[in-house]
């Protein structure tokens, strides 16, 4: 059995994230890393393998992104994934959800043709785009059931059950492998790479694929054929800090209530 875990390289959320002149996300000038939310996906992929002793299971970490995005795959290998695939091609830059999901789906199909892909694991959202749509789109493209936004994952044989928080309820979802799974940050702490893991990662197979390797043409993806177009981006004026008072002998509550009343909240 082969598990594919989709990991995205994203600009660090604690850095000053910004846009390029063509309104695409600056993925080069800002320090990047493996999206923290995809660490949970790697963790669940590894746990899936570890819970099935005696079964032959490999975990492949897959990313689509610029040169530096290979760091996301490396981190997954250090955590314990067995092999990595980095799809990189200048023509991919500026792809929207449709383009990105197309490239990912083609890459998964290629992995599937070689070693199988019984389980595709994603994070709940990328920390830059925050769409939470790519896993559903992959399920649509690959014709697999989607079992998404899991806070708890359980499996037995080819049956998978998850718990998912919906708007007004908690749901239990069941499906039969192969599936596309996405997991939330409630699914369990992600492990840190150990020293041994970091050393071992250097020897693990890591392939680099271009669009041609996936049988895709440059005019099927990228900014020029994106289905959406950003017309403008504006930095939000920083909020100017308002009045801050220090509570002394109960003065804070009075000042707070006065403020709320002056704004007609009371």
């Amino acid at each position, binding site marked *: 059995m082969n598990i594919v875990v989709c990991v995205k390289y994203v600009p660090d959320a604690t850095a000053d994230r910004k846009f390029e002149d063509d309104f695409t996300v600056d993925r080069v000038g800002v320090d990047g890393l493996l999206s923290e939310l995809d660490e949970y996906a790697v963790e669940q992929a590894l746990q899936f393998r570890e819970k099935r002793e005696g079964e032959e299971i490999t975990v492949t970490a897959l990313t689509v992104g610029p040169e530096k995005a290979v760091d996301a795959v490396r981190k997954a290998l250090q955590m314990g994934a067995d092999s990595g695939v980095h799809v990189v091609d200048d023509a991919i830059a500026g792809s929207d959800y449709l383009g990105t999901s197309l490239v990912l789906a083609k890459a998964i199909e290629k992995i599937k043709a070689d070693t199988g892909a019984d389980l595709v694991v994603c994070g709940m959202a990328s920390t830059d785009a925050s769409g939470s749509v790519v896993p559903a789109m992959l399920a649509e493209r690959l014709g697999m059931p989607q079992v998404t936004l899991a806070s708890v994952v359980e499996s037995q044989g080819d049956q998978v059950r998850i718990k998912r928080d919906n708007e007004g309820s908690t*749901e239990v979802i069941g499906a039969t492998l192969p599936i596309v799974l996405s997991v939330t940050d409630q699914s369990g702490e992600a492990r840190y790479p150990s020293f041994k893991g970091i050393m071992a990662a250097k020897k693990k197979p890591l392939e680099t694929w271009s669009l041609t390797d996936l049988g895709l043409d440059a005019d099927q993806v990228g900014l020029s054929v994106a289905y959406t177009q950003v017309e403008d981006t504006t930095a939000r004026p920083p909020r100017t800090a308002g009045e801050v008072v220090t509570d002394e002998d109960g003065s804070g509550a009075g000042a707070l209530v006065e403020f709320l009343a002056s704004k007609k909240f009371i």
Partner: protein
Amino acid sequence: MSEVLVVIDHADGEVKKPTYELLTLARRLGEPSAVFFGSPDQGDAVAEKVKKYGAAKVYVVDDAQIKGFLVAPKAEALQQLAEKSSPAAILLPSTFENKEVAGRLAIKLGSGLITDAVDVAAGPDGGAVTTQSVFAGNYTVQAKVTTGTPIITVKPNSAAPEEAEGAGAVEAVAVTVSDAAKGAQIVATQPRQSTGRPELTEAAIVVSGGRGTGGNFEPVEGFADSLGAAVGASRAAVDSGWMPHAFQVGQTGKTVSPQLYVANGISGAIQHRAGMQTSKTIVAVNKDPEAPIFELVDFGVVGDLHTVLPAATEKITERKG
């Protein structure tokens, strides 16, 4: 005028406020047709509600074949509706489930998708131009769909609902759901207990507590109730088991955009800001004057929430007499 499909947000036939917001926005682009996934015997009552906000048609999709499965059948149903009505745009309330429906629909229709819009307007050519708030609220982005039928998911509190009389003609639609769409089955559903407080994402006022509560949410809840507010929590409070995850505000919880947000014992990490930075007025109570949350506030109190909040609650109750 061309149709604009608007997916109704409801709980068992009870129409929710974001629906009226979407109908209001949809009227900028064309004539809204509301889509109701639910029980057909609730169709007329729902139509009565949505026609007050301009719904010309109300498509009633019997969800008997749909509700037992995750996401895929709804996308198929909307595809069939879209192919029938050739809408100018499709608007959905931005819930996790609807975003996934929208994602699958985008592929089916070969259409562009914009998620989490906080505003939708008609551009010079009449097409939809959206505004999104990105990078934890630090940027706003104007975008449009260039290919296919614009599919847009819209956040709650993005518009003030405005009434407008619509015909509200009910039309039952039969959709076929493929077996392939039934792969992910909803085995069990456990409704969450209602707190009796307003819904977090829809509330005009949200009062949140963080690690600084030390696990005692009483001062936060009491203060919230004095203002008729919803209660929220930071991830630290949720991870500590003090509040259920449904109350979490932030990147991996709910995004709120109320008139007033009050953060208590919350430091103001970027992931928390991502969920509340677009609130109109921000207030914080924190005992650390250096807490980053104070960079955002319109008004702040440096103090212990366990004394400030109960005292403030008492004063508010007095004022209200």
